[in-house]
């Protein structure tokens, strides 16, 4: 016992170092990005307000680009509004009317802080739980899939984008309907990988990749275009590289998708698994 105490006193510095290093590694390995972690809630309250001030300044630099994107989006919306449809003469056509229930709700938000050149990238949105934003809501912009919300504070949300090594999204080919998982390898923010595509799939370079319908996203949100693919030796799967539609170096205005009946699907699926 005496020897042990003497050992600790004599080697105090390395022991304190190992102690702190242990805490650091505990923090590193105990942060599952899909779970609400106190780290982000505490952090985003402080750093979020600083980032918002920063965004106020940098807003002006992106105005021209943002205007063009917005006017495009406006045009699309006008295309879908009632005023751009004409009344069809009922005497000459049959209308089978069915009642529609709203399943997905969209809400706009602005990206106030983001990275794209790092191996671990995140986006911060200027809206949080007060605006009805919650974790596991999908984020898209006018070009396609961006990511999913992992945590929210009152006024801010953190988005795990598709260019994060721990993100995993269910996707498929637009025409052939082969399924796969979208996973990023950490190298290039314009390219991602689609794994688990079975090797009998027939497709070609340039085909479009879209989302599958999950509890988070509706079907058909564009993800990217197939850049290249090759067979993995000794495996039944293909290795597919996808060129992403979303340019993460200028993600600015985004839309948040809320699936209003996600709970129903989750409950049913969980009950089945158990």
């Amino acid at each position: 016992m005496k020897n042990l105490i003497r050992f600790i006193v004599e080697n105090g510095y390395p022991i304190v170092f190992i102690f702190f290093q242990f805490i650091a590694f505990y923090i590193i390995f105990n942060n599952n990005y899909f779970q609400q972690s106190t780290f982000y809630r505490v952090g985003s309250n402080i750093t979020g307000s600083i980032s918002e001030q920063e965004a106020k300044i940098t807003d002006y630099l992106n105005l021209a680009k943002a205007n063009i994107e917005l006017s495009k989006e406006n045009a699309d919306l006008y295309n879908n509004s009632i005023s751009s449809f004409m009344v069809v003469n009922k005497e000459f056509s049959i209308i089978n009317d069915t009642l529609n229930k709203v399943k997905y709700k969209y809400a706009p938000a602005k990206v106030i802080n983001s990275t794209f050149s790092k191996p671990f990238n995140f986006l911060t949105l200027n809206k949080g739980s007060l605006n009805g934003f919650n974790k596991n809501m999908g984020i898209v912009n006018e070009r396609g899939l961006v990511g999913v919300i992992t945590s929210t504070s009152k006024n801010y949300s953190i988005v795990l984008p598709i260019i994060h090594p721990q993100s995993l999204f269910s996707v498929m080919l637009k025409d052939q309907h082969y399924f796969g998982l979208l996973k990023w390898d950490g190298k290039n923010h314009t390219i991602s990988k689609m794994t688990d595509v079975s090797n009998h799939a027939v497709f070609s370079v340039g085909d479009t990749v879209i989302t599958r319908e999950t509890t988070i996203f509706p079907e058909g949100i564009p993800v990217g275009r197939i850049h290249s693919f090759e067979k993995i030796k000794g495996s039944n799967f293909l290795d597919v590289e996808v060129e992403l539609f979303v340019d993460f170096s200028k993600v600015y205005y985004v839309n948040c998708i809320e699936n209003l009946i996600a709970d129903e699907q989750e409950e049913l699926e969980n009950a089945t698994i158990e």
Partner: protein
Amino acid sequence: MIGLLLQNILRFVVLILFQALILNHLTIFSGWGQPFLYVYILLVLPINIPKRILLPIGFLVGLTMDFFTHTPGIHASAVLTMVFARPYLLKALRSREGYESNIPSAKLMGFSKFYIYSFILILIHHIWLFSLLYFSTGLWLYVLGHALVSSLFTLLLTSLLQLFAQPIKYV
């Protein structure tokens, strides 16, 4: 003493904000060089600071950075390793008469010794940091390349700051 404390706290606030708001968005050579100038806070802490206080300070600085970059624990771990090596390096670089004053600088240690001191510490920090960041990918050459280019970038900024903050008299 209080002046020294205030000076270090001010440096902490300014450099952390500078890092988070400006340098974190800055890369050179298509992403190969990313400067982490905030380690300067720890490079110029007083020499006679008790070794065991050095570690919690490093841990806090790293954790503050983690809040901004959303990398829980990674900066904290890298800064800890760097700070751990600091007293040994200072001891090794000490001349026979010891250090005349208390703050490590190019003026006090001499030009070459200060650069060796800074570069080794920055390199330790960057290698540790990039190894943890790319932990799952196993791209070791990629890690070393990033660390080396970024270290040189950080060292360049450090020397600018050093010239700016404590001008050396060239006789």
